[in-house]
């Protein structure tokens, strides 16, 4: 695997949009060609080299390309958008849409990420070592197909709308979440190791949600069924098992209604 290191040397007055910083775009390109890749600040477009120092070399394919981002990337959006393979390591905070629509590969953020992180993610591994804001692994506005695959792990806390319209994949939040977890969910798994204020599984059709901490306000549409032992992220524990949302439509499979399972650690 080849490593290419980009150090952000200059800050933009507003925010930069860098949806072309992906192994897919970098693969097979020379350092000069990578430096010419466009980033934009509002309606003005710049070559990447005008803001950053580029060292190392990209691999011949995305799979063989690792991108390391140094410097302060907290005002840069859309890093790793739609990437399909390879690796990005961000040694900084980042702004919105990190790993949005990603299909494969691996992104590690050694810092915080803003909203819309991993939005409509379809595959790969996205790890945020710090906190995230809102709409983590959720759907784009008006799209009923949210996250469909991959593993999105946030080691810190998150805001609202976690996995909205989720259909597959796994979201693991090691800290707390605010409200709206798995809202409109149609599949997938969400694990929250901390507490959630409320609205877990609202309008959710099917899928699995695990909460290890407390839920301050439980949705009325969730009904206790039984206690079960489950292995969650490598740790086995007893959970109270609820089904719901009873206020939402649910498909029939072989004469049996399918619900969303909510597991609350005992």
């Amino acid at each position, binding site marked *: 695997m080849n490593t290419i290191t980009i150090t952000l040397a200059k800050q933009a007055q507003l925010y930069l949009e860098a949806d072309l910083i992906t192994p897919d775009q970098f693969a097979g390109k020379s350092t000069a060609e990578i430096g010419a890749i466009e980033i934009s600040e509002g309606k003005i477009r710049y070559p990447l080299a005008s803001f950053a120092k580029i060292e190392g070399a990209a691999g011949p394919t995305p799979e063989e390309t690792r991108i390391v981002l140094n410097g302060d990337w907290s005002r840069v959006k859309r890093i790793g958008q739609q990437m399909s393979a390879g690796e990005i390591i961000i040694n900084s905070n980042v702004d919105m849409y990190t790993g949005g629509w990603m299909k494969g590969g691996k992104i590690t953020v050694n810092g915080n990420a803003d909203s*819309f992180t991993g939005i409509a993610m379809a595959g790969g591994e996205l790890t945020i070592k710090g906190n995230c804001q809102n709409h983590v692994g959720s759907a784009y506005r008006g799209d009923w197909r949210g996250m469909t695959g991959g593993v999105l792990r946030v080691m810190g806390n998150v805001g609202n709308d976690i996995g909205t319209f989720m259909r597959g994949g796994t979201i693991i939040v090691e800290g707390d979440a605010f409200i709206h977890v798995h809202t*409109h969910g149609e599949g997938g798994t969400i694990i929250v190791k901390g507490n959630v204020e409320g609205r877990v599984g609202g309008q959710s059709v099917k899928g699995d949600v695990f909460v290890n901490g407390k839920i301050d306000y439980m949705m009325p549409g969730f009904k206790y069924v039984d206690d079960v032992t489950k292995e969650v992220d490598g740790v086995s524990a007893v959970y109270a098992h609820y089904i719901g949302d009873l*206020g939402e439509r649910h498909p029939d499979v072989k004469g049996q209604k399918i619900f969303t399972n909510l597991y609350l650690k005992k």
Partner: protein
Amino acid sequence: MKEVIKHVACPYCGACCDDLEITVEDDKIIEVKNACIIGTEIYHHASREGRVGSPRRRQPDGTYKDITYDEAIDFTAKMLIKAKKPLIYGFGSTNCEGMAAAGRVAEDAGAVLDNCASICHGSSFLAIFDTGYPSCTLGEVKNRADVVIYWGSNPAHAHPRHMSRYGIFPRGYFTGKGARGRKVIVVDPRYTDTARCADHFLQVAQGHDYDLFDAFRMVMHGYAADLPDVVAGIPKEKILEVCDVIKAGRYVHIFFGMGLCHSDGRNHNVDIAINLVRDINEFTKCTIMAMRGHYNIAGPGIVWAWQFGFPYCIDLTKGSHAHMNPGETSSVDLANRGEIDAFINIGTDAGAHFPIRSFEKIGGAGIPMVTIDPSVNMAATVSDVHIPVAIVGVETGGICYRMDNVPIQYRAVIKPFNGILTDEELFDKIYERMQELKMAGIESDGSWEYAAPLADVRPVKEAYE
């Protein structure tokens, strides 16, 4: 000579009452009939002392000096070309013609185009994108609805004639008994003046409307037995009683306000309401409508969806496509995050309506700012340039969309004060000037030689003292 102009539509709230009678004499408004008190005021405002009759430029000492329209248009055009990401926000109080002209300017300038829905019913748009909008016209409510629900809205104060013209009191084709034939349900955390007209008032716990909708939906899906004893502060028995009223209705209609779209969860409070409407339609006919605030705040949603495919928060900076994602491209977030470098406040007052901390980031940050509005509002007092325009519905006509998305033809009853321009004329002139400047070689390079921020921006408070 006195003249009475009939069938005039009111340019104030989203109810768009179109039965006003205005008496004018020598281009002055003498009397306003049929309007409520706030509607009456807007007409008298036009004839009052202290109107601004010319564009004004802010001076270094904070005072304003009259400038010509040409100078004001030149400043605005240069600012729009030079800025990297200008924001054009407002449009609550103008006509669709002005909105379309502003759309052309925004596209040419590579600006972000947003309207007051951004801080109002914008979240309802998000719900509508997700779940659809089973709505109707206000005429259908008046003529058919026998169960009317006001949820998180207080028309008694915000839309004063709404209850008498459409919601509760009017006698319609199938509703000949008027209020006596209607069941009225009000859901609100406060006992409002609207709640005083209700047959059933549900005092929902603040911020828990979502839970209460879920409970209603459980009943509609046949899970009444699984309801907790109390949901969002409402006892189970009361929820079941109200559900029976709803199911027994021949035509149920839900009006929802900012109590839903501006408490925690926002769009989800509305999309669950829309899903409840879908559920109720398994039993009887049911429709839903947003209580839009201003008389033409439904307009930009219609006009821009036609121009750009999106109703609000439209980022046109890329030139190749429009991008919309509230949370990122919404005005308050752009301001909060320091993501814009020029601002046009048109037909609204961002100074009064934005959270003060986010407005400070525009008004106090040396970002060049232009206010286009008939009156001196708070935003105008910190703008570099204030351009007065004719008052829509009083001094100029045009198309405005009522809260049910029905277009209403507005009329001018007097001539524009001091010959000031309309919003449409102004934006068309800004567009023309932008073309001239571009021909002369002025480019978007993000430099500020043409629109240098004024050094001395005094806080609003000080400017008033």
